[in-house]
């Protein structure tokens, strides 16, 4: 039985349709990420599940309970909001105990659970500290502990890591993974950060403008984007995308842009106008002279690697190379050989192919 089931939910604010016929079934113990740019409706869905907004259409079931019409306090969900909303005028202990006190648990039980949660989250020495005095990552641990202490069936997280710095983010990620596997809780995570979604989730749901663009395991969504939006959104840096036309030259299929031709190893194609996606790390550059010459326009230092932007004919492409290999304005060469690429047609499955540039 699925832990959370959302069926045909729509929500409009005024004239704007923020969520459009959204359906999703989340299995118990699954970690699902709602991934998408700002304004795509993902936070609204969280609000709808939590009960702060009512859907215009559709139903939401928590196991077999209908949530529609139920006020938020009766839904027993764990909620972690983006700004944490830790209760500033209370101590950490009072924050942790709040949910249990509100539900009328006995004092002994509350104390026991609070101690256990504090130990689990490493905040025992913060228990008597006023919540307002903590730094952000401490507050986050409090907020997380607080929402889990009531043992909710589903944990809802709204952009939990967007305010963290890089180091904290990595730490939080492993922390969440640990909690998820330990507690086997069902987690619904809302984020705009695709690496977060890919690393944490069992199921990634890519959203845009209130609708689901693609849904699947992280590897599936990453390696086989169903359309250009998903292909662009996932992957850092963004993949190289360009349109190409299918032509037959001498009995072989070739993909042609205005000035570049690619041989492809595929034999059947979904359409004659295709979008080609090549990841930056699949496209290699070398200093050794060869038939395919490109001009480097810009080099971005990323630490271990460089993002080298260059133009190949009419195409503006980017490649990830070891740092320091190239400088702006230089010439570089693409070595001959197969390049992994994806052919996208909207609505159809992606087909991967090996491309070779025809000099």
């Amino acid at each position, binding site marked *: 039985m699925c832990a959370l089931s959302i069926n045909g939910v729509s929500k409009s604010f005024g004239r704007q349709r923020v969520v459009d016929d959204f359906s999703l079934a989340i299995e118990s113990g699954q970690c699902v990420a709602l991934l998408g740019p700002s304004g795509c409706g993902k936070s609204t869905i969280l609000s709808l599940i939590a009960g702060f907004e009512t859907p215009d259409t559709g139903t939401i079931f928590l196991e077999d309970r*209908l949530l529609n*019409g*139920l*006020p938020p306090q009766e839904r027993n969900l764990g909620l972690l909001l983006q700004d944490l909303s830790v209760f500033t005028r209370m101590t950490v202990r009072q924050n942790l105990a709040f949910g249990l006190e509100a539900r009328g648990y006995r004092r002994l039980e509350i104390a026991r659970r609070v101690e256990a949660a504090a130990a689990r989250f490493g905040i025992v020495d913060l228990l008597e500290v006023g919540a307002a005095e903590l730094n952000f990552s401490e507050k986050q641990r409090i907020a997380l502990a607080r929402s889990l202490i009531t043992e909710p069936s589903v944990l809802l997280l709204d952009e939990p890591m967007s305010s963290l710095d890089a180091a904290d983010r990595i730490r939080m990620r492993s922390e969440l993974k640990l909690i998820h596997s330990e507690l086997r809780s069902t987690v619904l995570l809302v984020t705009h950060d695709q690496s977060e979604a890919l690393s944490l989730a069992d199921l990634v749901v890519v959203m845009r403008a209130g609708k689901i663009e693609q849904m699947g395991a992280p590897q599936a969504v990453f390696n086989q984007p169903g359309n250009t939006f998903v292909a662009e959104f996932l992957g850092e840096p963004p993949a190289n995308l360009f349109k190409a036309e299918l032509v037959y030259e001498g009995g072989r299929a070739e993909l042609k842009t205005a000035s570049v031709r690619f041989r492809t190893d595929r034999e059947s194609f979904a359409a004659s106008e295709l979008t080609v996606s090549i990841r930056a790390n699949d496209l290699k550059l070398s200093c050794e002279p060869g038939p395919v010459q490109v001009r480097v326009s810009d080099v971005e230092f990323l630490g271990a690697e460089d993002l080298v932007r260059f133009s190949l004919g009419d195409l503006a492409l980017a490649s990830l190379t070891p740092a320091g290999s190239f400088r702006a304005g230089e010439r570089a060469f693409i070595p001959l050989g197969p390049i992994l690429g994806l052919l996208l047609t909207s609505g159809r499955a992606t087909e991967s192919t090996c491309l070779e540039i025809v000099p």
Partner: protein
Amino acid sequence: MVNPHRTRLLAAFRRLIVLMAMGFALLPVFWLVSTSFKSYEEWASSPPHWLPQNPTLQNYRIVFAPEAARQFAAHQSGSLDYKVSGSAWSAFGNSALVATAATFLSVTFGTLAAYGISRFRGGGRGFAFRLLTVRMFPPIAVVVPMVVLFSLLRLTDTHLGLILAYTTFTLPFSVWMIRSFIEEVPIDLELAGRVHGYGRWQVFTLISLPLIRGGILATSLFVFILNWSEFLFALVLTSGHVVTVTLQVANYVSASSGKLYGVQAAMGTISTIPVILFGFLIQGHLARGLTLGAVHG
């Protein structure tokens, strides 16, 4: 599962309470306005008439033309004696003059002082709070010696006297309100001005003042309302020559004029219009003003 009927019931209940509150808020005002259009027989009729049966402008005529009052007296049978002292016109004129001048002075001095206090800790550490204590005196406590002072300075029953008294006692409002507006302006802007070579006065007039223009306007309207509505000082510090609207209203129900409720209501209605007008203009700033800047809302 929340009962949809229950939510509808709660909503209706809420609507009822709000309507009752609104009715309570409107009733006295409604009565005042309604009475102002009632003819003489209906002023204190038994049972009371909620709406005038024959609405008339007679009361308003009497307010603005005491001549009409005397004619009215002649028209009526004897028991009422229409000797209303002063005319509404001069009352409006006095109030307008005193309120405007006092507002101008109060806001001007207040802005200067507020700027000095806020940016430069002017007046010493306690000055701002000494201003607050002024507001805490019951005015009557100060009024007794003020009467003495006024007679010494020959300010009794003069416009200037009232103006100065009003200015002084609205200073706390001016200073604290303007101060809260000044503190919303980041000091960096002024420092930038200094860096560019502007002197202190220029920074004040060219940078700070324009930015708090709205606040000064709101404070002015607020102080004007206070001055226009003031009663106690006007009562005690004048003796018949300078009559403000608040005093004039009282004139219509007195030993010499009888109980001209309708006329009083008419005067009251008109005299309260500026306050209502300005009050709604600065609706957003009322909380700030009445808590002396503590609440920004």
